[in-house]
């Protein structure tokens, strides 16, 4: 079975632009979470979606938004990009998104560079 897939793998944007990142969860998984990992730091939670509904939101500005589609894939959108948005964006999937009872599986990430 395929693992979590993300696209694109790398992206270069300039300040002020908008970006859309995509994630396909493991087949059968209904929960998708997004994380931002700045170089040298641990991942920081951005959003969690389950069954197309937002289940959780981290401490990120409104420039960040996400959605989940009926096939459980997900998109993360970032508007008005800043230099500080340069990071590895990770998607993780799990069956029901129950943090205390399940394993979440990370995708390979999208490396975003903002110039």
């Amino acid at each position, binding site marked *: 079975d395929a693992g979590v897939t993300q696209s694109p793998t790398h992206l270069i944007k300039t300040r002020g632009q908008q970006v859309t990142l995509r994630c396909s969860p493991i087949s059968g998984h209904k929960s998708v979470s997004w994380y931002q990992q700045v170089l040298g730091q*641990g991942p920081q939670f951005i959003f969690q979606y389950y069954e197309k509904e937002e289940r959780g939101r981290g401490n990120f500005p409104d420039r960040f938004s996400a959605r989940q589609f009926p096939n459980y894939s997900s998109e993360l959108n970032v508007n008005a990009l800043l230099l500080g948005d340069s990071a590895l964006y990770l998607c993780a999937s799990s069956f029901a998104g129950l*943090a205390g009872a399940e*394993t979440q599986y990370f995708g390979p990430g999208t490396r975003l560079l903002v110039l």
Partner: protein
Amino acid sequence: GQQVMQIPQYQHVQEGEDFTTYCNSSTTLSNIQWYKQRPGGHPVFLIQLVKSGEVKKQKRLTFQFGEAKKNSSLHITATQTTDVGTYFCAGLTSKTSYDKVIFGPGTSLSVIP
């Protein structure tokens, strides 16, 4: 706000030596997860600890959750070059969603052959 710290930040060991990383939370956790991230890779789930004082072993890796559920450790016996990577703990205060998960800054392990 809640903080999760890890020490040391970096550790260089000779192959065959033991390695330990410590994770400390400013608040009581419901559970803690450990991940390994190889250079250029993505985090890979290793284990989850739920009970106070819990100890779990995976081959050469031993994980421990403190009695107060505010600290945890990962110990690797007789390190190998395949153990190279950054080890992250992730503290959770919710059992139903990941919105309260806080990752530590990680411990980067280098193994000298």
